[in-house]
């Protein structure tokens, strides 16, 4: 869900890195092989077992130096940090199948299949002293049958940014409902400026993946008792409105940088854009105070505003040769050392700390649009449920894309996606035991 790597890494850079990815990953692996044997390689000066820790490449300057500094300060083990560019989730997924993987690693999940497959270890005892201080919206998807498998690091959110001056010129109020959003996008569309940018696919990917319109319609992806939460006429109605939006010609499509990058918004190609919290500093630098943020507006009588949130978590591989040492290190860094957690969340990129106590006292999150963003994330934040598997994901985004772009019948598409999701939920439930 949250992918801070895209914060200052537009699609272009990510793909260019993908091209290099193989080679870089290989050198990384070689470096790791040396590092974990000798304990050298830019890691910690401590004694004890050698641990290898993986991070995905954050775009913000200074983050890499910071995590190396934290690792070097640990005394009970020699920790080697690997900073991995490229397609991180796939690298870790592959590495966890082998003995050459990391001991401690960042994980967008852990996914339900990683947990059920015994690839990550139980960290409940490590987090228990501070359990209540972690933001429940992001801790809950890391929890399976009451046990915690990943310790959230920082929270990212996605929001709707709008250009105040353009709205004022067109006499449009910031939209509070989906219908208002559709009308506003239409009113704001001119010759060289489109009304709204939801990504080059018309929002099918980013909105579909987070299930954002479904939440806005008052539904959920998976209910609390583990069933499909969106097999409902309201889902079809709301998704149908996204097609109206797409067909109205008021969406920006085919921009050089995709939705995760604020370039289209700051360059004036669009009056409103859906993008991440991570883009806020760049937008503020380009536009000053001429912008505001909103949640995705609710739709219908049961509707509510939606703000997708997510967090990378720190997890421990079950194949680690020093599981106990790795667990102790994770506890030290992501539970005990709140000074490092605060530094990591706030000094480099723009994230919300995963600890409620740290988020409350963060000065730079207390004024202007940043304060609004934090408030919306706290009030309306929803994360992807743990039982939401990649296959369910594909089924829903495919359905949303067909509805939005092809004008396919929303009710039929929702039904077919719901059938796939039901089968997936049955599969993961069968393994419970």
């Amino acid at each position, binding site marked *: 869900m949250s992918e801070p790597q895209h914060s200052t890494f537009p699609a272009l850079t990510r793909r260019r890195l993908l091209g290099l990815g193989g080679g870089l990953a290989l050198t990384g692996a070689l470096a790791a092989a040396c590092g974990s044997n000798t304990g050298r390689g830019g890691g910690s000066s401590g004694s004890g077992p050698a641990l290898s820790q993986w991070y995905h490449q954050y775009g913000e300057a200074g983050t890499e130096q910071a995590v190396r500094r934290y690792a070097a300060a640990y005394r009970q083990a020699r920790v080697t940090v690997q900073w991995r560019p490229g397609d991180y989730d796939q690298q870790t997924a592959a590495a966890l199948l082998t003995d050459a993987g990391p001991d401690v690693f960042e994980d967008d999940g852990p996914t339900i299949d990683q947990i059920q497959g015994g690839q990550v270890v139980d960290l409940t005892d490590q987090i228990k002293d501070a359990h209540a201080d972690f933001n429940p919206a992001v801790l809950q998807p890391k929890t399976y049958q009451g046990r915690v498998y990943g310790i959230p690091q920082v929270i990212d959110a996605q929001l709707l940014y709008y250009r105040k001056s353009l709205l004022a010129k067109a006499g449009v109020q910031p939209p509070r409902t989906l219908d208002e959003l559709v009308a506003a996008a239409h009113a704001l569309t001119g010759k060289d400026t489109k009304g709204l940018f939801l990504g080059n696919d018309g929002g099918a990917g980013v909105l579909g993946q987070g299930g954002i319109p479904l939440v806005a319609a008052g539904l959920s992806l998976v209910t609390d008792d583990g069933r499909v939460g969106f097999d409902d006429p309201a889902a079809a109605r709301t998704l149908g409105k996204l097609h109206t939006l797409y067909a109205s010609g008021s969406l920006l499509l085919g921009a050089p940088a995709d939705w995760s990058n604020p370039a289209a918004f700051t360059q004036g190609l669009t009056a409103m854009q859906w993008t991440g919290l991570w883009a806020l500093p760049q937008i503020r630098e380009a536009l000053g105070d001429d912008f505001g943020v909103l949640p995705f507006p609710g739709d219908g009588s049961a509707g509510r505003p939606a703000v997708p949130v997510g967090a990378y978590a720190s997890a421990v591989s079950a194949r680690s040769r020093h599981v106990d040492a790795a667990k102790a290190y994770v506890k030290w860094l992501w539970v005990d050392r709140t000074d490092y957690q605060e530094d990591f969340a706030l000094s480099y990129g723009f994230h919300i700390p995963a600890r409620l106590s740290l988020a409350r006292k963060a000065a730079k999150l207390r004024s202007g649009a940043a304060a609004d963003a934090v408030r919306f994330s706290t009030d309306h934040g929803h994360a992807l449920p743990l039982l939401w*598997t990649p296959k369910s994901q594909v089924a829903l985004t495919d359905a949303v894309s067909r509805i939005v772009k*092809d004008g396919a019948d929303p009710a039929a598409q929702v039904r077919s996606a719901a059938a796939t999701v039901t089968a997936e939920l049955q599969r993961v439930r069968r393994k419970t035991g």
Partner: protein
Amino acid sequence: MLSRLLGPQRRYLWFWVFTGPFVIGLTVFGYVPLLWSITLSFFDAHNTVTPSHFVGFANYTAILSDSAFTSSLATFAVFSLFIVPATYALSLALALMVNRLRLARAFFRSVFFLPTACSYVVASMIWKLSIFNGVRFGLANTVLGWLGPDPVAWLSTTRPPWYWVVIVTVRLWLQAGFYLVLFLAGLQRIPGTLYEAAAVDGARPGWQVFRYITFPQLRATSVAVVLLLVINAFQAFDEFYNLLSTARGYPPYARPPLVYLYYVALGQGQDLGMGSAGAVVLALVIAVATVVQARWFGLGRKEA
């Protein structure tokens, strides 16, 4: 005893010295993964390559009833319908033109061959970001702008499916030069005496000579070219992935089998059993298609 093992003039020893490394490589990187993959396809292998839960043909029934997989096969069919005839015609036409040149033939041959050296990833990036981006300053949209119509979002419009223009042209540009060289070699093997005889018999240069001399004489080359084109189309992955994937996955259109299986088995999905079943199905389809094609073209039969 030893001398018998080594063979006369140590031929057996040298046999293994020369073929051994290749056989080992083929076994380790070819046959073992192949057999392993077939094994995996009969297991519930989520996030593991050493599964324990045997499921029989469940993965096969699942993948064959998966509409996304069957539609990916249809995508491949559409793609090869576009790309095979287009590349064939273009590279043959270019070869005929280059072959007639008296001046600077080597220059033009190199010019047309150069794109073959370009990486699919790089070309896809150029196609996606400069030529066919959806905003008004993209090259294709600039040209359209002179003629009147509004900018087209090439890669995200599904009605009409403009994305095929981008996908087909990038591969056409990349591979036409390679097949041009194959055709050139074929053209140069046609004996000049045939053309002389045709001229004596009164064949008009141009279409008639091409239809009755050049084209039939190129038959062996044509068969090879078409087979290679179809197999390459089956293996399409790079340009599709680089043109259409986003940080959030892949859209449900223009998704060929390899891209789909990549997301099932190697993405976060890690359903290696299902992915292997899909790979086996795909391998069988390719094998059958190739055999049928070879029969149809009479490959291996003696040239009449």
